[in-house]
């Protein structure tokens, strides 16, 4: 534990802080070893599905998984990915997903920041009521409203478009809430100084409120991107062709193709194509991701 106390001085935002003694911390070397083995075993079990999926996706198609070793084969190949790409337009699904995710986030950031600024900076008649009305969205999740929202989309005439996938999320109670919280943390003296200096509302927002609130915006952004990259049910019902289908909806269609069946090499390759892009981003920015998930507490 000496090591822990030496290294315990770390910045607050650099991630997990050092751990104090006393909690499940054996003092003997044997105890520590046993604990390390337990942790390692659990971690390995938990990681096994994805490790297996990666192995299977690289396995040549001539070696089916039904027999023998399900982990390793004599050689590795990327042919499965090429084959999957020829069976379904995953490139197109990818573009659709990126368009939907970026469009959703871009609009959300603008609308939520505007609303948050109004609620944090101004007093106006009915402000509480309006805030509460917006917050209803956090109690009644959009996922539950797929039947009426489907009808609305048909009415708007945008069925089977990428806009239809994104539009129900353009107004975000959660984003408004999170950004407003950040704005309320901005010292009033700073705002007053800005007002005295003759800042317009736009300058107040961009020069006073936004700079110290970027962390909250990042947290919201990461949780929004993760949610919409992985969302499935809404994109499934609101699309009817590959033109607008996203990766998740495309994957499920792909798994149901007659010729795919239990061809695990293709299934795992397709799965990795769908999960891969966001997962790579997550691996690079692991700390920001975990911090954002804790900060936002929503998927």
């Amino acid at each position, binding site marked *: 534990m000496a090591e822990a106390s030496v290294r315990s001085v770390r910045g607050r935002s650099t991630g997990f802080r050092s751990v104090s003694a006393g*909690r499940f911390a054996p003092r003997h070397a044997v105890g520590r070893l046993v604990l390390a083995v337990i*942790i390692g075993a659990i971690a390995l079990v938990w990681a096994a599905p994805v490790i297996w999926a990666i192995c299977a996706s690289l396995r040549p198609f001539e070696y089916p998984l039904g027999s023998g070793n399900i982990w390793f084969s004599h050689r590795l190949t990327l042919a499965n990915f090429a084959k999957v790409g020829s069976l379904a337009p995953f490139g197109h699904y990818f573009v659709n997903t990126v368009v939907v995710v970026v469009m959703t986030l871009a609009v959300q950031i603008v609308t939520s920041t*505007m609303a948050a600024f109004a609620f944090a900076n101004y007093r*106006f008649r009915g*402000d509480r009521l309006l805030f509460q009305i917006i917050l209803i969205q956090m109690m009644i999740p959009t996922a539950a409203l797929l039947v009426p929202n489907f009808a609305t989309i048909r009415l708007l005439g945008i069925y089977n478009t990428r806009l239809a996938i994104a539009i129900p999320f353009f107004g975000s109670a959660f984003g408004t809430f999170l950004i407003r919280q950040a704005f309320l943390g901005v010292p009033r003296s700073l705002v007053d100084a800005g007002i005295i200096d003759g800042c317009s509302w736009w300058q107040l927002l961009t020069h006073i409120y936004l700079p110290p609130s970027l962390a909250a915006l990042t947290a919201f952004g990461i949780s929004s991107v993760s949610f919409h990259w992985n969302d499935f049910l809404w994109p499934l019902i609101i699309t009817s062709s590959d033109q607008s289908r996203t990766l998740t909806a495309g994957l499920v269609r792909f798994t149901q193709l007659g010729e795919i069946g239990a061809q695990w090499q293709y299934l795992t390759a397709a799965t990795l194509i769908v999960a891969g892009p966001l997962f790579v981003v997550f691996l690079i920015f692991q700390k920001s991701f975990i911090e954002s998930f804790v900060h936002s507490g929503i998927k």
Partner: protein
Amino acid sequence: MRRSKSSSRPQFAGPGVTDANGPGVTDANGPGVTDANGPGVTDANGPGGAAGGRRRPRSVILPYLLVLPTLIFVAMFTIWPTISSLLGSFFLQRLNIAKYREPTFAGFANYATLFHDPTFYQVLGNTAFYVLGSVPVSIALGFLFALLINRRMRGIGLARLALFHPTVLPMVSVATVWLFLLTPDYGLFNSALSFIGYRGAQNWTGNPDLALLAIIFVAIWKNAGYYMIFYLAGLQSLPREVFEAARLDGAGALTTTRKITLPLLRRTSLFVTTIAFIGAFQSVDHVFVLTSGGPSNASNILLYYLWQVRFENLNVGVASALTIVLIALLLMFTVSNFLISERKGNLDG
């Protein structure tokens, strides 16, 4: 001041901060709870709240314009759909029957249909079993993982990654991989089970007794790591002195966990429970991939059934009634969790 600063900057003090700060800090309980609460609570706590005497400029038209876009979208895709579901639930409308293509008023007929439908009760039972089977286990595992991983050790970052990574994978990808894991004979899950002595049935997704369990396993694997990070943040915000004192008193690890750690992390637990319950009602992606609700509705849960009634049976009226049932259940959980947190908060005070 301290709290609102922490909320403007994501750090590992998420919901756990509340425990260190004691009662009265409500909004760190997370969106699910706070919104029941309205802005009043946040205002009272926040430095900029009315209680703090923040002078906010009065303005006539600008704030309304700023709020308008969010309000329009929320009205269009949350408020109106809720109202229209309620209205729609009183109308017969079946798109596959010419006579009922246009909605006709029918009073409570759709609800009557639902409450005389054995499948509906089966689905409700399945949903309860699914939620009560997956949520407590995921949370308990999340807590255990957090305890295990909350230490300095070589490779602990890798272990954390191993436990957390399912959170960022799409549920449909996860379910597709599990489709293989659950394959009879050579599937990894079955191999592991027979290795530890399991000799029972193996056709997890095709056996009516096992299908719902398969759905639960997938949910647990996907979510435990997500709940872990909240406990991890909570653990790291606890005061060290208490644990030092406990150790000096000779308390063992188990006693310390049960008598000190868990009670101190009560608020984290409440927050995690809320998001876990609400999440469980919303997530049916794995049902689509693994079982399609079958065999014979054995793994059919509420949101999936709702989708089936609307998009396979084309029964808009009953689907609207089901939407109302789902909303009612969600509100029940949110409100009761909020009430529990209030009561706990008062006990603290």
